[in-house]
């Protein structure tokens, strides 16, 4: 009774997946791809023959001093049109660039061990039919030689059986990879991935569909959970089998067409078609069988895992995403296999361990078998473990599956629904909304930073590739200058585009009309902050360079940029623009206006800290990280206090400009002296004012009331609440991606330095 139900589901699913129009389209495409892929060389040759030159002839040059096979070859090929055969003293003189595409150089000599040794040299790949013909003739010659020899031993018979050994050399560097064997191997890999992906996706979709439509409610009244999972997964596995059978059929069809091609190309009467079975060795068959068996069982287990994961989804979009985990796992395993198992090295202990673990064994066992590193016992052990894990996976999957699939509420509502009570106050609901808004802000900031980093890195890579061809075309300025100009443009764009993204989300402010006096006041304020910030910046610089040196990180970043390599006035100006002016404008726009603007309503302190982190991150190296972070906080304070953009821009310009000038004019001693003294003077003035201001502030604080006011301002609980609420900005996944990306780039840059 029950089994008939399982059968009914399987049948139903199979019908649904095979009657599907996409299944038909997919298979048609696969058929075409297989045929074209396997006959690519033939089709190309055919097209060439028809289009280019009908009278072009295949020339065969034979070096055969002892006259072993020439007579036979001549007999065979002279009958054919379009083929000329010629005996030469040495093929060496033909072996150069001027060799015709339609020429075959053949060298035949006697060999003690194998009777005949031959080598074929061509410029590109030629029609395989010619080569097969030659091989055939040489083999027959060899057979003849052997039969003349009366003392045949067992080993000699084996040698007779084997074909004549031919060294194959292709001179031209552009080797056509349409060889059927490589394509076949590639195909196996693609089949595995393709079918697995298809299968997991289908399981995810069908289960998600049954959950969404709530039909699961009805079905589970009639059939128990385990049977349900089994039937769903089996039906998908069967789809895989059907697909696999189809693929093999396509392969056979393609091979048959290929053989038809080759006989048509030579056009000799009674030409034999390729013996398909000879192309597939016993080992390959074993490989295919093993792959098939392991793939089926593993797909079943993965299907069970997938069904549990899909059961947790609450909408159809998630169903697709739920396959990501397993697909990633498979990709990782595949990469590991290609790295660990290769014919060139012995297989390590890790591979042996992995080869018995379910799922991983699907990749390890067949490939280890193919290179002869796995014996039968090992295969059996892996298979037994794999089979044992099937019922285990089902038992483990049953309960979570049932719990998940009958749970229609999505995760966020779950707490409200049962365990936590809904707080029906307006404040609570508003806080929830605020959290969502915060998270959205995090998404925007994270995304814009990712965009910025990717734009910078990718455009830099593209530039380094295309700089040569561009500089060859534009001759009126030097290569260096073009490079610098393009770098400037790239930098500006890669910061400005993310800024535009941020700008769209900055809440608009009302601009109040200011009187002249107010304007004057604000300018004075700005100047005051600039002057005060310079000495603080210097102190930070000193501390940081000291710390970086102590840690032992890369020295001056400007060194690494290779600023000293450029010479000429224009180049100096461009460097100044690129390193001092552009960052001062665009980075400030992005960080101080964009990021801080978006986070403005989260409090000035929070906005400052987050913006400094982002600011430090986009510098993309650890040496600058600390400095950038501290300066970022300083700039953030200046920005909030003054409410203007230009003070931080000026400060940024001063900071970067200082470094650039130092780097560019290091050899002009007089200039450098004046420059350094003026910097010291500015710093000294700033320090004095700073100390005076601090003194004034401390004096103010002595007043008891102001202390009380300050304490009120720094209410611990309120700050704590603010922080927990604000942390939702970081909850978004883009931040994690961002952090990961930055970490990778950090290490990459560090390596480069």
């Amino acid at each position, binding site marked *: *009774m029950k089994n008939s139900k399982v059968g*009914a589901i399987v049948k*139903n699913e199979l019908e649904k997946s095979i009657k599907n129009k996409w299944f038909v389209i997919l298979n048609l495409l696969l058929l075409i791809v297989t045929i074209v892929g396997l006959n690519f060389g033939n089709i190309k040759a055919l097209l060439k023959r028809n289009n280019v030159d009908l009278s072009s002839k295949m020339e065969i040059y034979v070096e055969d001093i002892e006259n072993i096979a020439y007579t036979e070859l001549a007999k065979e090929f002279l009958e054919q049109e379009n083929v000329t055969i010629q005996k030469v003293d040495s093929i060496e003189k033909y072996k150069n660039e001027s060799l015709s595409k339609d020429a075959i150089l053949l060298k035949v000599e006697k060999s003690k061990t194998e009777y005949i040794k031959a080598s074929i040299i061509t410029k590109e790949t030629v029609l395989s039919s010619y080569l097969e013909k030659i091989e055939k003739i040489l083999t027959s010659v060899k057979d003849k030689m052997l039969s003349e020899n009366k003392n045949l031993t067992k080993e000699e018979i084996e040698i007779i059986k084997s074909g004549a050994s031919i060294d194959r050399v292709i001179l031209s560097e552009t080797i056509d990879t349409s060889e059927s064997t490589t394509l076949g191997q590639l195909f196996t890999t693609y089949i595995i991935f393709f079918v697995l992906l298809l299968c997991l996706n289908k399981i995810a979709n069908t289960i998600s569909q*049954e959950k969404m*439509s*709530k039909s699961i*409610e*009805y079905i589970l009244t*009639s059939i128990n959970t385990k049977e349900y999972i089994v039937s769903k997964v089996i039906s998908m596995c069967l789809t895989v089998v059907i697909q696999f059978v189809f693929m093999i059929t396509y392969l056979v069809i393609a091979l048959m067409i290929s053989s038809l091609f080759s006989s048509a190309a030579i056009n000799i009467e009674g030409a034999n078609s390729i013996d398909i079975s000879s192309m597939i060795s016993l080992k390959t068959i074993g490989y295919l069988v093993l792959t098939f068996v392991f793939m089926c069982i593993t797909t079943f287990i993965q299907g069970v895992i997938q069904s549990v994961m899909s059961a947790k989804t609450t909408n159809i979009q998630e169903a697709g995403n739920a396959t990501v985990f397993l697909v990633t796992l498979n990709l990782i395993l595949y990469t590991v296999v290609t790295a660990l198992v290769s014919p060139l090295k012995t297989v390590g202990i890790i591979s042996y361990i992995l080869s018995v673990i379910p799922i991983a064994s699907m990749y390890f066992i067949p490939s280890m078998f193919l290179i002869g590193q796995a014996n039968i016992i090992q295969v059996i052990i892996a298979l037994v473990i794999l089979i044992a894990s099937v019922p285990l996976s089902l038992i483990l999957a049953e309960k979570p599956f049932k719990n998940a699939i009958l749970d229609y509420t999505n995760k966020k509502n779950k707490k409200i629904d049962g365990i936590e009570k809904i707080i029906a106050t307006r404040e609570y609901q508003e806080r929830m909304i605020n959290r969502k808004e915060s998270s959205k802000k995090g998404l925007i900031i994270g995304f814009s930073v990712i965009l910025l980093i990717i734009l910078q890195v990718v455009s830099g890579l593209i530039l380094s590739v295309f700089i040569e061809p561009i500089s060859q075309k534009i001759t009126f300025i030097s290569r260096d200058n073009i490079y610098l100009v393009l770098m400037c443009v790239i930098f500006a764009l890669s910061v400005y585009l993310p800024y535009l993204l941020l700008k769209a989300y900055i809440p608009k402010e009302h601009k109040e009309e200011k009187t002249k006096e107010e304007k004057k006041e604000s300018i004075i304020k700005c100047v005051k902050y600039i002057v005060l910030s310079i000495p603080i910046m210097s102190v930070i610089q000193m501390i940081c360079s000291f710390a970086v040196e102590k840690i032992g990180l890369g020295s001056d970043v400007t060194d690494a940029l290779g600023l000293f390599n450029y010479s000429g006035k224009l180049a100096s100006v461009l460097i100044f623009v690129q390193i001092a002016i552009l960052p001062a404008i665009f980075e400030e726009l992005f960080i101080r206006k964009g990021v801080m603007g978006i986070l403005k309503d989260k409090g000035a302190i929070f906005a400052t800290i987050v913006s400094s982190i982002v600011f430090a991150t986009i510098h993309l190296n650890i040496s600058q990280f600390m400095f950038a972070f501290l300066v970022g906080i300083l700039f953030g304070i200046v920005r909030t206090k003054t409410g203007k953009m230009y003070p931080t821009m000026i400060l940024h310009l001063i900071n970067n400009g200082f470094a650039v000038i130092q780097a560019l004019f290091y050899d002009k001693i007089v200039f450098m002296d004046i420059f350094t003294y003026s910097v010291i003077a500015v710093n000294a003035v700033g320090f004095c004012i700073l100390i005076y201001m601090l003194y004034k502030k401390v004096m103010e604080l002595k007043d008891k009331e102001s202390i009380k006011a300050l304490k009120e301002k720094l209410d611990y609980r309120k700050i704590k609440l603010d922080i927990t609420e604000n942390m939702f900005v970081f909850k978004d996944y883009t931040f994690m991606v961002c952090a990961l990306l930055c970490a990778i780039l950090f290490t990459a840059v560090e390596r480069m330095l």
Partner: protein
Amino acid sequence: MLEIKNLTKYFGIKKAVDNVSFKVEEGHILGVLGKNGAGKSTIFRMILNILEPDEGEVLYNGQKIDHSISDRIGYLPEVGSLIDSYTVYEQCIYYGKMKSMKSEDIKNNMFELLEQFGIVEYANMKIKELSKGNKQKIQFIISLLHNPDLIILDEPFSGLDPVSVEYFKRIILQLKEQGKTIVFSSHIMSQVEMLCEDVLIINDGKVVLDCNLEQIKQEYSSKTLDITGIIPESTLKQIAIFGTIDRKGNNRYIVNLANKERISDVFRLLYTSEITKFSVLNVSLNDIFLDKVGTKYEE
């Protein structure tokens, strides 16, 4: 006969179903009444063995319900369980097979039921093309497809127009005549009142009332009198000995008696008064609910 014993189910720390016990006799209709979230669907899901109860058990003809006898049970889930991409016929085949039916029988039964509802033309339509009411009809058809003995209908009337509700009622009553046991739930009191003999009222996962509808109505009705007329104060005082008097307007009194044998006594007392109306009140289910739960039933 369906018997439910001490059924309890927790969701987290929340008690969704709290020690629920009831019986349904063969050939009876039981209406389960309760507000949204009262635990009706949870009880049904436990009866059908989709959810496992934390405590208690469900017996059908003395046997524990599992997948071996689920073929004899028809179920209409509250949430709607049709797959959009299927046609009505495919859907019936799929679910019919789940009840171990043969394709031929499924086809015949489906057309029979479609004809009863007058929607034969939908047989080859896709589910997504149907309206909500029609989907409900198809679900109802599917729950009857395998001619089950016990039919469980979770909110069968939701999304239906009044005409379709009548159809449903007629068919449910027909099924009752055929001797089927039917359990259905609703949050609308009048629907329960119209259809069933037995009523189970559930509030916050607990059984508030479990009885035969006629019986309880008689019980309640026989105790309440509606009297209109000029009654002297002395008579009123005498009546007050038997029960409470609720004065409605000038000459109208609602008398709640403690004992129904007193009706004749009251009637005798009023013999001398000028009475224009004397009736024994027929109480609605709502009044009973009010009396039992203390609050008014809200739909």
